[in-house]
Every structure is written in structure tokens, then in C-alpha cells.
């Protein structure tokens, strides 16, 4: 309170006697009538207290919320991580972040983080644990490890780089089998890229210089492989050039968050992406728009003439004219680029879908060219460091599950992967894990898989950890993020790799490193030995510090070798197959990864649970999207609970009537339906994989999670459906139709 200022109590008295508070000051002649000088009450705008700032530090590190590997800078204040921003220098994301990266701080300070080692005290899966010390826990782990040589299974996400090196070395020391879990359609994508472009690394898209983007089902702006990298490029694609706005057409069964940004959307039946691509190629050849010989090379072993638009149209669910239009527009682009992914890859013919679309790029000369598909070189690590690994295909998981059931594994080690949630219930993994001698989880949260563990060793979250990783896909040249601990561990956790190193040592199979930090330092020293890249320093220590400060290492001259001119390996034509009889199950069930929750791996973070879905604006729940006509036929509206029945099972969830939904598709977001995973995720919503018939992709054996048919039945019940839509008072629309602005009617 300053001199001359009115006391708050006096002021309130005055207000109480006047209904026109706002004009009080001029009217009553108090002071000079200017509230700026009249009231020097503390204001957050220029608060004297605010003028004394504490010291915040910004540390560069790497994001681990999804496998894209964006560079981050984190604001740390008094030893606490406060805010995540993008690293403006790191070439993958150039300063931008997605919603999930922002939430890394909530993972760090999550109230349900596992704070100390836990030992199972009840039945497996009961969630009854007793705290124990690290010494006891490590000794127990080492004992199990020593007694399970040749009978140990290690489950992780695909690990490349130095962490992959440590785990591979650990697996070798104990003769353990190492398997990787990742969303199954990524397995298909990696194989398609290997066949079509001949690389183990995923390619990037040079959207910033493309004129026409044709996307088949990939949610590339929100959830697909490297959304921030693609979103940065997308901004430039639209408005980075003064004289050219890139044009984006989307082909796919669902208007997903990316399709919403397209200039045109061509709704097709699920799983027919590849057929549409072939028909487009046929049109381009028949009309002389592309070189016939190039087309023959791009589709080896396929007689394109058999795939006329007329022949494909009915299966695909769009007209022959539309396919012809797509083909002509694609051939005209200067340049054009075609991509496919997400649900396109999750069918029994997923590999064909993705490969056929990617091969379109050869027809228009867009492979390895500006504005096209840019292949990525391999990572700049030594030969003993594993390159990008693919997850295990579902077919091979079946083998692992058989082995588990036969009692082959005395010890199962799980870290960073949640296959009990991410594989369909029909896989029987949860039950098979019951046959394992001991299960040790190195985890920060009690997720669905960790819940099966006998011993839980709490590990660091990303902001407390070291790491060195080549983003996959990279930016078109060699790049590596350096992840460093930006804060001290918040709970009594240790780094995953350090626990392996310590346990191995205690079990008599010492690894050649004393700590994970030493592994990272050695790898960075190898980068220094390359004598190229963004960092220069006179000695090892200064070099390491410089890489830390920059957040990584990159060399924009280290691009991929000459791009191929045709696919290395042919991919045969395959039509989609769906589980379930169309008479009994009239709709296609289309699970899809959620913008905020992904495949469920971020469901424990409240900011992401509370983040409205881009299309439906729904929050905190699972729903099924139905076209208004389909919903009418069933007599349901938004908020009505329906039963989804597939040959595999049934689940109940509320309907969201989505005016952009394909009439034959029932789309359900992934991410919810966890048995545990902390207070924000536990018991919330439904895991659509419970409904999926475990059919596999024909070539790769990956789970075809989009290949099941479904019947939707009304239950007569209704729930209040939490969503953002209708929060704003002017659009108070609870359970009323969405306002649609239709041209010509207003």
C-alpha cells in the first residue's frame, strides 16, 4: 500500500453504496480519477516483488515422450524443472514442441511415481507391494539374474544407440533374449521403407519445398513418427514461400486430426489405400503422365493395367473419377510427395498399402529430391552400437508367449514398454507372464505390465536421465540428441542402464562400463573423433560440455547416399481382409492413436488427459465416433452408451456423433482402459484393442489392429460426455446438435 492510496476497506464501502463503481472516481472527485495512479495495489503486471527474479537455468536435453527424439530446453528454477521448450537449434524440431513434450514435467513430479524399490507382497497383479531398499532390491535382482542364464527375457522399446549397446551387452552376458515392443503398425512401416527405399532408417518429408502432398491415412501432424518435425515443415509448406501455397489432399477412412487440415479429403474404405495408389499409377501410365518404364520398375511383378480405377472404385468406396482426379493432380505437382501410415499400415495388407503409396514417389521423381521423400543416413555411431531396431511383430510375440507358457523363462525384465496394454487381450500375454519365474520391472509407474512384476525398481524419468539418440526419422542428415539430467532425481530412482550395469556386476557378469554416463561420454568422444559437425572444442571435456549446451550433435553435410530409383524388394498386391461377417458386423472398427495420449503411453499425465481431442473435443474418456446417418439409424446421439460387439468381444462406451465420420466406420481412440497407471488413468475408458481380432499383416506378421468388423448396439443408457465443446457459454450445446455452417444457407 502506497501513500495517497485508498484503503481497500474504504474502497469496498464506497463500492457497496454505488452500483456504478466504474465511474465512481470521476464522479466523486476522489484523487485524479486515473486508476493507474489512484490505486497502487499489487498487480501482477508490474509487481515490485516480481522485479526480483530468482535465477533460472536452461538446460538442453532430449524428449522421450515419443520416439521422435525432439531437442528440448528445460527451465530449471531452484532445482526444479518448470517448463519445457523446444531447442531452437536442434534440426528436428527447431524450437517447437508438441503437447506431449510439454507434459514431461508432470511425469517427473507425478504424485503416483514409484518412489522406492518395491517387492510384491500379495498375489501377482494384486498391486500389493512393500517398499524395500535399493541394496536388497539389487541383490534380489542379481540373484534372479545369476540363476536365469539362458532363461531370461528382456522386454524394452526398440533401442538404438548407446542404450541399445548396454542392453545388448547385458543380454549377451546373461544369454538373455531381447525383444522390443512398439505400436505394431510401425513394424510394418519400417519394413515398407526397407523394401521401397532400401534403408533401415525412416525417411523424412521435405514438405517445405513440396508443392503437393498426398497423404494416405497417416496422422503426420499429430501422432505419426515425428509430428513436430512434420508440423514445422507443414507451416513452411503452406506459407513459407511468398508465391506458393502447398496443396494437401488426404485419402483415408477417417478425417483424423491431420486430414482436418487438408484442402480435400477423399473418404475410402479402411485398408484400400494401396489399391487406390495402384489405380492412380495405372491412370498416370495410361494417360502418359509418367514414364511407363519407371512405373514398371516402381511396381515390380504387378500388372498395373489390371488395376483400373473402375476395377478398384467399388472396393475402395470412392468413384473412378475421383481416383483419376487424384492421379492427374499427383502427376502435376511440382513436386508431389506421397506418404502413408497410421491405420493404412494396420491392416492385413498393411505392408502393401504403405509400399504401394511410397512407390508413387518414384513415378514423379520425388525420391531423394527437394520437395520429396528425403532418405536418412545411418546414425553416426560406431559399428558396435545398434542401429534402428524394429519392434517384434505380433506373429513373433505369439512365439514369445508360447515360450512363456512353456515355462522357458525363469526371469522376465521389463522396461519402458507396456505390452500387456499394447497387445490385444486376445494375445494372452498377461496370463503367459504368470508362468514366468520372476518378473522384474524397471519402471517409473505402475502401468499394466509393471503391475505383473514381482520386483519393481524405480527408474529415472526422461528429465533425470542421460541419453544419446539418433532421432528416427532424422532431419535428412545425421543428427544426435544428447539427453542430460536437468534436475536431480526427484525420488529414490536410478537410471535404467545403471541398474543393469550394477546388477550385472553383482551377478558376476560385469559389463565393460562403470556407469551409463561413462557410456554416453565415450560415445560423444567417438563423435569428436569424426572431426565434423556443429561442435568444435580443444579437448574431450570441453567438447562434451559443448554438445551438452547445444543439446546434441549434427552435421548437415552428412546426408544419405544416392537414393535408389526403384524399390529394392517387390511387395505383392494384397486386398484387405476383415475379421467378422459383414452381415453380423456391418461397420469397420477403426481404432486410432490419440493426439494427446498416443497409444496410451501418456495416459497418466493430467494435462494430456484434459487436452481436448482435435476432432471431437472429448476429454478424459473413450468414445466411438459415428456418422450422423449411422447414429440416426441406430437411434443414438452423443452421450448415449452403446455396446461395440466384434467377433472377439464387446465393450461399452458413449457415442460421439461426428459429422465427418465415414458412415461405415466406427472409430475409437486408443489410450484409455488401463488397469492401473496412476490416479489419472486408472479404470478410465476402454482399450479398443480388447475388441480387436488378432489377425496379422500377411507379410510382416504385425498385428492388423484396424482389420476387425463391429456391430454397434444401443443400450438405452446415457452418460454425461466430458468434452470441451460447449464450454464456451455462447455455444452452450449440451447434448444438442453441433452447429454447422453450410454454405448457401446463411
Amino acid at each position, binding site marked *: 500500500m502506497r501513500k495517497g492510496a485508498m484503503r481497500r476497506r474504504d474502497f469496498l464501502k464506497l463500492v457497496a453504496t454505488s452500483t456504478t463503481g466504474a465511474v465512481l472516481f470521476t464522479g466523486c472527485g476522489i484523487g485524479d480519477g486515473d486508476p493507474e495512479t489512484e490505486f497502487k495495489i499489487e498487480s501482477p*503486471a508490474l509487481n515490485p516483488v516480481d522485479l526480483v527474479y530468482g535465477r533460472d537455468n536452461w538446460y538442453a536435453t532430449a524428449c522421450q515422450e515419443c520416439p521422435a527424439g525432439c531437442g528440448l530446453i528445460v527451465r530449471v528454477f531452484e532445482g526444479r524443472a518448470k517448463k519445457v521448450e523446444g531447442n531452437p537449434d536442434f534440426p528436428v524440431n527447431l524450437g*517447437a514442441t508438441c503437447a506431449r513434450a510439454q507434459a514431461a514435467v508432470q511425469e517427473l513430479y507425478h504424485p503416483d511415481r514409484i518412489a522406492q524399490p518395491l517387492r510384491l507382497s500379495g498375489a501377482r497383479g494384486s498391486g500389493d507391494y512393500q517398499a524395500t531398499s535399493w541394496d536388497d532390491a539389487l541383490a534380489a535382482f542379481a540373484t534372479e539374474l545369476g540363476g536365469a542364464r539362458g532363461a531370461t527375457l528382456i522386454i524394452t522399446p526398440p533401442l538404438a544407440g548407446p542404450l541399445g549397446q548396454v542392453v545388448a551387452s547385458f543380454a549377451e552376458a546373461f544369454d538373455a533374449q531381447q525383444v522390443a515392443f512398439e505400436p505394431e503398425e510401425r513394424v510394418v512401416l519400417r519394413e515398407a521403407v526397407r523394401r521401397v527405399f532400401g534403408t533401415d532408417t525412416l525417411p523424412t518429408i521435405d514438405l517445405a519445398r513440396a508443392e503437393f502432398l498426398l497423404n494416405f491415412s497417416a496422422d503426420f501432424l499429430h501422432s505419426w513418427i515425428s509430428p513436430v518435425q512434420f508440423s514445422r515443415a507443414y507451416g513452411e509448406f503452406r506459407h513459407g514461400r511468398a508465391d506458393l501455397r502447398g496443396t494437401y489432399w488426404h485419402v483415408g477412412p477417417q478425417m483424423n486430426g491431420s486430414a482436418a487440415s487438408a484442402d480435400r479429403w477423399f473418404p475410402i474404405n479402411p485398408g484400400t489405400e494401396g489399391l487406390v495408389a495402384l489405380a492412380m499409377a495405372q491412370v498416370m501410365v495410361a494417360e502418359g503422365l509418367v514414364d511407363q518404364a519407371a512405373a514398371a520398375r516402381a511396381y515390380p511383378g504387378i500388372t498395373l493395367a489390371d488395376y483400373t480405377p473402375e476395377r478398384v472404385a467399388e472396393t475402395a468406396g470412392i468413384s473412378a473419377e475421383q481416383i483419376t482426379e487424384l492421379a492427374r493432380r499427383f502427376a502435376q505437382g511440382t513436386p508431389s510427395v506421397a506418404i502413408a501410415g497410421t491405420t493404412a499400415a494396420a491392416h492385413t495388407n498393411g505392408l502393401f498399402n504403405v509400399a504401394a503409396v511410397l512407390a508413387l514417389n518414384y513415378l514423379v521423381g520425388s525420391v531423394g529430391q527437394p520437395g520429396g521423400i528425403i532418405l536418412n543416413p545411418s546414425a553416426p555411431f560406431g559399428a558396435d552400437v545398434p542401429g534402428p531396431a524394429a519392434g517384434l511383430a505380433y506373429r513373433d510375440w505369439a512365439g514369445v508367449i508360447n515360450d512363456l507358457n512353456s515355462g522357458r523363462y525363469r526371469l522376465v525384465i521389463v522396461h519402458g514398454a507396456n505390452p500387456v496394454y499394447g497387445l490385444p487381450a486376445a494375445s494372452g500375454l498377461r496370463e503367459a507372464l504368470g508362468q514366468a519365474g520372476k518378473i522384474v520391472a524397471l519402471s517409473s509407474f505402475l502401468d499394466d505390465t509393471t503391475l505383473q512384476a514381482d520386483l519393481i525398481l524405480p527408474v529415472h524419468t526422461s528429465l533425470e536421465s542421460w541419453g544419446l539418440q539418433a532421432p528416427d526419422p532424422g532431419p535428412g542428415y545425421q543428427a544426435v540428441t544428447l539427453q542430460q539430467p536437468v534436475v536431480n532425481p526427484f525420488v529414490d530412482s536410478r537410471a535404467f542402464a545403471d541398474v543393469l550395469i550394477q546388477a550385472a556386476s553383482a551377478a558376476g557378469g560385469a559389463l565393460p562400463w562403470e556407469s551409463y554416463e561413462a557410456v554416453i561420454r565415450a560415445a560423444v568422444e567417438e563423435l569428436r573423433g569424426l572431426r565434423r559437425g556443429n561442435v568444435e572444442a580443444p579437448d574431450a571435456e570441453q567438447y562434451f560440455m559443448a554438445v551438452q549446451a547445444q543439446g546434441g550433435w549434427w552435421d548437415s553435410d552428412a546426408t544419405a547416399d544416392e537414393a535408389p530409383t526403384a524399390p529394392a524388394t517387390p511387395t505383392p498386391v494384397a486386398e484387405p481382409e476383415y475379421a467378422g461377417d459383414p452381415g453380423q458386423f456391418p461397420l469397420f472398427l477403426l481404432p486410432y492413436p490419440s493426439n494427446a495420449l498416443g497409444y496410451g503411453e501418456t495416459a497418466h499425465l*493430467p494435462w494430456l488427459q484434459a487436452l481436448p481431442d482435435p476432432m471431437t473435443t472429448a476429454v478424459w474418456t473413450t468414445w466411438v465416433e459415428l456418422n450422423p446417418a449411422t447414429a440416426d439409424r441406430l437411434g443414438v446421439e452423443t452421450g448415449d452408451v452403446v455396446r461395440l460387439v466384434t467377433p472377439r468381444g464387446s465393450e461399452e462406451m458413449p457415442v460421439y456423433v461426428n459429422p465427418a465420420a465415414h458412415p461405415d466406420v466406427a472409430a475409437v481412440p486408443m489410450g484409455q482402459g488401463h488397469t492401473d497407471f496412476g490416479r489419472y488413468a486408472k479404470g478410465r475408458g476402454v482399450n479398443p484393442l480388447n475388441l480387436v481380432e488378432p489377425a496379422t499383416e500377411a507379410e510382416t506378421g504385425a498385428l492388423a489392429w484396424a482389420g476387425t468388423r463391429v456391430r454397434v448396439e444401443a443400450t438405452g443408457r446415457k452418460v454425461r460426455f*466430458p468434452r*470441451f465443446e460447449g464450454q464456451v457459454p455462447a455455444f452452450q450445446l449440451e447434448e444438442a446438435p453441433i452447429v*454447422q455452417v453450410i454454405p448457401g444457407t446463411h
Partner: protein
Amino acid sequence: MTPRWGMVIDLDRCTGCQACVVACQAENNVPINTEAIYLQHRAIQWIRVERYWEGEFPNIKARYIPVPCMHCSEAPCEPVCPVYATYHTPEGINMQVYNRCIGTRYCSVNCHWHVRFFNFWEPKWPESLHNQLNPDVSVRSRGVMEKCTFCIQRINHAEQNARLDNNRPLRDGEVNTACAQACPTRAIVFGDLNDPESEVAKIANTTDRGYKVLAELGTNPSVLYLKKIDPDAPAEHGAESA
């Protein structure tokens, strides 16, 4: 020259990813919007992304518009506050003074953009999540209005640094809002509209796609939208297609 802070939001770049929404909540200690809060229609989002539909299947489009406070020069929320809790800073920011606010919500009623939010409940975080809270931003208590501040704490911090650095003027890009900084497509650009060399002013002064939401109310918002381009749309009067 005193800055006038403003924002350009390019709807032809926006993809509705909502990174801005979480970035804002992280920066500004916005309470967690629980399921119950959503069901009560009391969610607080200083910046929100609205989705609306145009057309019918299959010729349907989903459109996104991120909506922060417009920071109107003639803000209708300001004169109605009986206690001067809403006021206009000399730099053009429409501010809420939390410890003046007595929760009449007149300002909220008078805001046509619905970007003012009332704390119906005491905001609660589990103890461990307190560690994330931004020390530069007050946590608002029950009974108080809150709203977008254009990340005033970042502006103050940058201005203070500039004063300490030989009292130099702020450089363009030296201060950025959390939403603009996160935006993956660079749809949101923030800066000083009074500095003709700033990126935001250059866009605002040269674009032919600019419009202000509810401009007809004459409140002179500081947020300029660049309209979405729809190549298939029938030509509007005066509109240019790209």
C-alpha cells in the same frame, strides 16, 4: 516507444494440435481441468482451440481457431469492473489484478470472446506437482477471475534484462508467449505491433488475409487472424485465393 503487444494467428498454418494449450497451462499455473470440471462447463483454458464444422459428409471441413484473450484496446471487460481489477497496461495488455478481484464476474459477462475464466473452486494440485508451478506467476484462488496475460511475467523479465543492459530497447523475438513458442507450425506470432520491424507487425501490415474476430464491435483487438485458405470455396467478395 512504448510497445503495444500483439499477436498474429495464421489459421492456414494451425493444425489444431493444441500444443499451445498445454504450453500455456504449464507456464501460467492454470489448474488441472478434471473430468468433473469439464462436466460443470468450468474448464479454464487461457488459450483454447475451437473446432467447428463446415459442410456435410463427404464434403465436410473441420476448422480450427485458437482463441486467447484479444487484448482489446477498447476492452468491454474493463469499464464494468467495480473494483478496477481489470485494467489496461500502458503496453496494451488487458490485465487482471487478482488481489483486487472480488469475483463479480461482470467482466466475464461483458467479454464477447469468452476468454475470462472464474475460479469456482480453489485450485488443487497433488503436493508433488507443486514443484512444477511457475514461481513467476501467482496461483489464483477461489473467487477470482483469471485470463491470458500475454505471458506478462516473460515480458517483465525481458524488459528488466534490457534495462539492466544499458537500458536498451527490447529486441524483436526477445520475448515470446508460451503458446507461440511451442506452436509446431509457427501459426502463432507474438511481438510489438508498434515496432514496424517486428515480425508480427510486418505480417499484420502486409497480409491480405487478416481479420479480427468480432471486429464490428469496435473494440480493436490486438490479435489478428489470418484466414484459412480454401481453394475450393466459392469466391467471396473481395477475397483472393492463393
